[in-house]
């Protein structure tokens, strides 16, 4: 009889465990809703205004002292080190201008840099808090002095923004920090926005940027795709985009309004809330195992006397 109850107990414990994991999956579907903070800092990039001069790219490398910048990199054919044309964001490139050309008439530039998400996946996954989101400004920043180089942030970022220095023995992650400790601190504006000669990059608070973006959409409805990219993508981003071509053609992925980090955190939280489940599991198992051991020991004594 005792045995039966133990078995029932076991079943119960097993079912609770599985139930919890399954419950996590279910819970993730129920949306808690994320608080969007429109006071945070960001940028609005208008692809229709961009002239593709790449002044932002070189300004970014200048303020960040990234190697591979105009004055640092020396390609084989470029003895003087005057030429730098990275083809993608990399361990030495935080922002990049690309041209997408469908035909002679239909083309668009696009600028890549960190989106400074409202609910950043990179912050959510970093195991040692090397990626952080600043409370007031909302800037997502990276600290190489705590980073262990696990590259989970790269896996998690839906925009493929964090880049790793694969070629270095002492590598780090590189990504745009909205000039937090460089130009923004010195001049109150990001370097890329400051140098843009065409006014394609507007620096400011998210709410102002959103107002401005919607105004532009209203003023010139034919010029734009009627969508502010980043307003709702992945829970919203502080870096916003306007363009005349569909955003996925410009290499900006289609992302559902729910932040991926919300989904995963909800499941993780359901399983590990207050660490109750693991502790409960441990004590239950201890209870069972100790009981089993006792039984076994008594049998040992009965059957294997003199066995020492």
């Amino acid at each position, binding site marked *: 009889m005792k045995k*039966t109850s133990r078995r029932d107990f076991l079943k119960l414990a097993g079912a609770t465990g599985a139930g919890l*994991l399954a419950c996590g999956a279910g819970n993730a579907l129920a949306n808690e809703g994320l608080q969007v903070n429109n006071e945070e800092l960001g940028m609005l990039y208008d692809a229709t205004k961009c002239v593709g001069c790449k002044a932002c790219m070189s300004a970014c490398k200048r303020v960040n002292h990234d190697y591979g910048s105009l004055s640092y990199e020396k390609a084989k054919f470029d003895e003087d080190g005057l030429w730098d044309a990275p083809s993608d964001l990399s361990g030495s490139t935080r922002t990049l201008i690309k041209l997408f050309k469908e035909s002679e008439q239909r083309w668009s530039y696009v600028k890549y840099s960190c989106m400074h998400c409202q609910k950043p996946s990179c912050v*959510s996954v970093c195991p040692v808090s090397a990626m952080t989101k600043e409370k007031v400004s909302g800037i997502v920043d990276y600290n190489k002095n705590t980073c262990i180089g696990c590259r989970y942030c790269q896996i998690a970022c839906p925009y493929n923004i964090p880049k790793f220095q694969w070629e270095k023995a002492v590598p780090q992650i590189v990504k745009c920090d909205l000039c937090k400790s460089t130009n923004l601190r010195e001049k109150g504006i990001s370097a890329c926005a400051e140098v843009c000669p065409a006014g394609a990059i507007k620096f400011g608070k998210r709410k102002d940027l959103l107002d401005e973006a919607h105004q532009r959409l209203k003023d010139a409805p034919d010029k734009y795709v009627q969508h502010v990219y980043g307003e709702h993508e992945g829970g919203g981003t502080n870096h916003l985009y306007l363009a005349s071509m569909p955003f996925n053609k410009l290499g900006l992925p289609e992302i559902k309004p729910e932040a991926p980090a919300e989904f995963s955190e909800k499941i993780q939280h359901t399983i590990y809330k207050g660490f109750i489940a*693991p502790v409960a599991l441990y004590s239950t198992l201890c209870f069972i*195992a100790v009981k089993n051991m006792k039984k076994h020991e008594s049998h040992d004594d009965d059957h294997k006397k003199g066995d020492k």
Partner: protein
Amino acid sequence: MGHSEEYQKLEGKIFTKSFFILLSVVLLGFYFVGVRYVKGIGAVSNMSDGYPWGIWITYDVATGTAIACGGYAVAILVYIRNRMQYHPMIRSAILTSMFGYGLAGFSVMVDLGRPWNAYNFFIPSKWQANSAMFEVALCVMAYSTVLILEFLPAILTSIEQSKWDRMNAIRNWLHPRFAPDKKTMEDKLEMVRLGALWLKPRLNKVLIFFIVLGITLPTMHQSSLGSLLLIASTKLHPLWHTGFLPLLFLLNCIFIGYSIAILESIISSYSFKRPFEIEELSGLASLIPFVTVIWLSVVIGDLAHRNQIAAALKGDFYSGWFMTEFVLVAGGSLILFVKKCRRSARWLFISASMIVLGGALYRFNVYLIGFNPGQGWKYFPSFAEIMITVGIVALEILGYKVFVALFPVLPNMDLHGAHKKKGHAKKHKGEQSKPLPQSEAAAH
């Protein structure tokens, strides 16, 4: 408890031909590890910003630890489900787990870009409980420690009984000038022996609490290995991206664990020329289908729920890999439903291999094959990258071979042989050994 004579050391030489072959593979792998530390990860691997996790994470960590779950799976069986007849298998299972996890930890150190910062895991202000990786890292570290503790009795026993032949041989081999004087060495060794003698009973008393910890921790981190990819909702193919990832990974490691315990026992019986432990193996094998059936139903149910059945049957690249994974696990389990197959070493070997392969493929699918970071990214491991992984696996096998020769790990053949001859009688003995056997026996 007199468990020591349940196990025995393997007689025979350590330095065989296969030892040196394995050793050279290990050395080659370590050469590339050296290159990685001098020239950066990019110099040895094909990983990129699109595929920042390659086979080191996918195989060595995500799959390797599942394969190392033999210790976990058998421990559940022995200590929680009270099937003491499997106790003889546990030491070798724990040994493989110990190597599997230890080496997963080692490859993480190779894989991490800034490993010197890993101390941040122990600084509370840096803790980031939202991160599944934080959870995995702490659990894996704790579990590796627990595994060492669990294995300690084997080491202590052999220290206790040791006559230090090997040590003396080494001493004699050394040039007299370097060799310590015989008397002092004997004194020191005697002290070690007494220490072991003192420690063993004390350890035995608390061991069960570590053993249970050794069951709790894998439950946590194996499910978290699934949680790791939850966040990649835009990159992981919908066939695999589901909220059930943690549950699927947990079940997956349990059936891989039992299958590996079977494979391991068959392989070591074969290569060390010992009789097959068919009684235990078929018992283990009868458990596997329960777990796989749950796993398969969760997979199907979840796909149906998310309207992805069509995608699974589409016949494209992803569906091909999905079907392979699914058919391997399902096929392997089907074989195990047949009682005759469960009692044949060959069929057991085939079905267990299928299940391990399918289960491992599932993890590859989640971590690499189904992972698509966007246009223009490709990944296939480089030669050096593969050699590092192969070197690590070779080290694992090497370590296993050395350990089974040095310490009492494998089930004692004399005891075991007696069981074998008695055939049915063995089962009876097993039943008598428990106060209320009928319910356990009925579960079979």
